[in-house]
């Protein structure tokens, strides 16, 4: 879905604006989810919403910056590896009365999808500003995934006494 909409755009600014729009949707989704989960685990959903908000700010700032392409290139130069740690546990649908682990499993699946879409777009775009911006976005989502996996490890794999 993202892919289709994004591939029609003609300027990098437009791409970034649309991505920000996607993030706004995602942010809205998590904000709505907050009261639906137990208060004990709301911090996770709050964090997820906040992350999206930060992403929106980052992209807006990027779109406005004069040396945007330098930033992009700079970011792509240091690609984030896909860790695959959570691939076996991602769930595309949010379970009913989700617990902390469930929320993370779902969030991981979403971010995984985004990575794949951006990566695919980048792969199908010739070198140039568009390729760079898609690679950049894929990389950003990978970083996010990596953060989520670290949290997942901390919460689920606490080791025990």
């Amino acid at each position: 879905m993202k892919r289709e909409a994004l591939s029609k755009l003609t300027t990098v600014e437009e791409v970034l604006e649309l991505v920000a729009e996607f993030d706004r949707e995602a942010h809205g989704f998590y904000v709505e989810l907050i009261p639906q989960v137990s208060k004990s685990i709301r911090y996770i959903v709050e964090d997820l919403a906040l992350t999206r908000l930060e992403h929106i700010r980052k992209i807006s700032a990027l779109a406005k910056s004069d040396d945007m392409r330098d930033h992009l290139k700079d970011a792509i130069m240091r690609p984030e590896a896909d860790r695959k740690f959570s691939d076996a546990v991602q769930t595309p649908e949010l379970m009913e009365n989700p617990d902390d682990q469930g929320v993370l499993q779902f969030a991981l699946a979403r971010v995984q999808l985004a990575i794949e879409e951006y990566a695919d777009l980048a792969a199908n775009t010739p070198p140039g500003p568009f390729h760079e911006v898609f690679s950049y976005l894929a990389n950003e989502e990978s970083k996010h995934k990596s953060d989520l996996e670290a949290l997942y490890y901390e919460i689920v794999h606490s080791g025990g006494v």
Partner: protein
Amino acid sequence: MGSLRDVLSPFTAWKHVIETPVTIKNPIGREAADRYRGFHQNDTDKCIGCGSCEDICQNAAIDMIPVDNPKDGDSGLRPQIDYGRCCWCALCVDVCMTGSLTMSNEYTWVDSDPDAFRFIPGVDKMPWDDFEKGYERQGDRMLSGLTRPEMAELEPEARIGNFDEIVAGYSREQAVLEADRCVECGLCVATCPAHMDIPDYIAAIREGDYDLGTQILYETNPFSEVCGRVCTHKCETVCAAQYEGEPIAIRWLKRHIIDNVSEERRLEIVGTPQVLPTGQKVAVVGAGPAGLTAAYDLARSGHAVTVFEAQDKPGGMMRYGIPEYRLPYDALDRDIAVIKAQGVEIKTGTRIGTDITLDQLKADYDATVLSIGLHLGRSTRVPGSDAPGVEAAIDLLRRITAGEEVPVPKKVAVIGGGNVAMDIARSMARLQKQKFGEVGVTVTALEDFDHFLADKEEVTESFEEGIEILDARGPQEIVTFKSGKRKGHVKGLRTWKVTSIFDEQGRFTPQYDEGDEMVHEVEMVVEAIGQMADISLLGDELTEALEWNRGRIAVDADGHTSEPWLWGGGDAVHGPDVIHAVADGHKIAASVNVALMAKAEAEK
């Protein structure tokens, strides 16, 4: 006498007239010998401020001066030396626990200000700070022992077929030898969550005064028998003795004290509450270390304490989580007996939410303490993790303790690398040994042995007992039978090799090698990756009313929750650790006590 030779011979002295003078023209700046004992040097990063140098100085030339904030294992103090007193004997260098203190071979220094000769080596910069030459002791320190006496343990063959306690405990001779090594710096006290008076009770062992030792233990910890066996002994990680040699076996010494005092004597030493009953009532939910410690303190303050425990016996995770071979139940019972002797009532088999609600407690008691522990096992939730034949470690351990029948197949895989994983692996191995005469347990852990979560001795002992531990393997799927009689049942565990798990900063950044895939054929998979608290007993309303802190009930420094009537502590609040739970119990009791006194005052 009087020969001519005797008159002439002395004149040979004149030949020295033409010799070059041997006097050094300028003695300031003459370089001393390589191992000369001159002004001190201190590697302040290595120094831990233990003060052994000050203790040994027979001239009282050394003061410990704060130069930084203290942190775990470092008092932040550094030795200042008064060279008006120093006799350059270098005992401070010899006794130094870390080897940070040395002496340069610089000894010539002129200054008209006498106070200049009182400075903190390494902190007050001096020209000789980087001198290579000078006195440093040869080899390890010789002025206090380096190694622990070896603890007698059951041999693997003798222990694998039963749940007998493995560790024998120190004999008097061993304990005295070990207690002797302590330099009484007290750096460990800050790190111990309960701030036990470790140097003092070790001193009591040296003196052979076990009554005093017991008294000291009970001032900070009513679970010395338990902690003497299974404490996470964070104290030992900051022990000054560890820098050259082994840290003091603080945990075993604690146990040694309790081992040497009979149950009756212990009750006599501890005694019963010495205050008038306050008439106030406190409910404690959960008879684990946090709850029972709070109950002990509160009862000794004169309050009527009732502890509600869902299981059939008190002890919480100490009983139902820790296998008997590490902590025999009668040891735990002895600790609890002392607590009960304070008049604490423990209602076992009473589950909150089912048998009685928190609302009732709120209404019936002046204060409620929530210390529920972490009794739910986490699941990996990899595909197949809900299949029959997949068990939660914590659940299995509880069932083993309760004497329930648990399935014992020939081949078992355990997922997890913490102490719980070791506990269930070793418990299952024992059951297998009893049933089949052989052990068939494979543990797969995400972490490699360099970053292993379980204690080293757990890993060593597991290996000794014939358990296979595969480090750095990530679970991908629990494979099940696709057809046949056992369709849907566990068939094996599929794992990938983890090539790295943490980056240099210690951040979790796993890397898999998908090419290195293994399928461990087993009939049972036990997930032992982590636990969580069963907070369902709070109910929606209370859950909503309470403040939370990243998944755990938020409490202030005193263990008080956002609800005025409710305190919380122990594993469910601060993560799994017996001694931390004990510390929580003390804090909560103190806070409850203050609140109840205020309440009584208000009601007057």
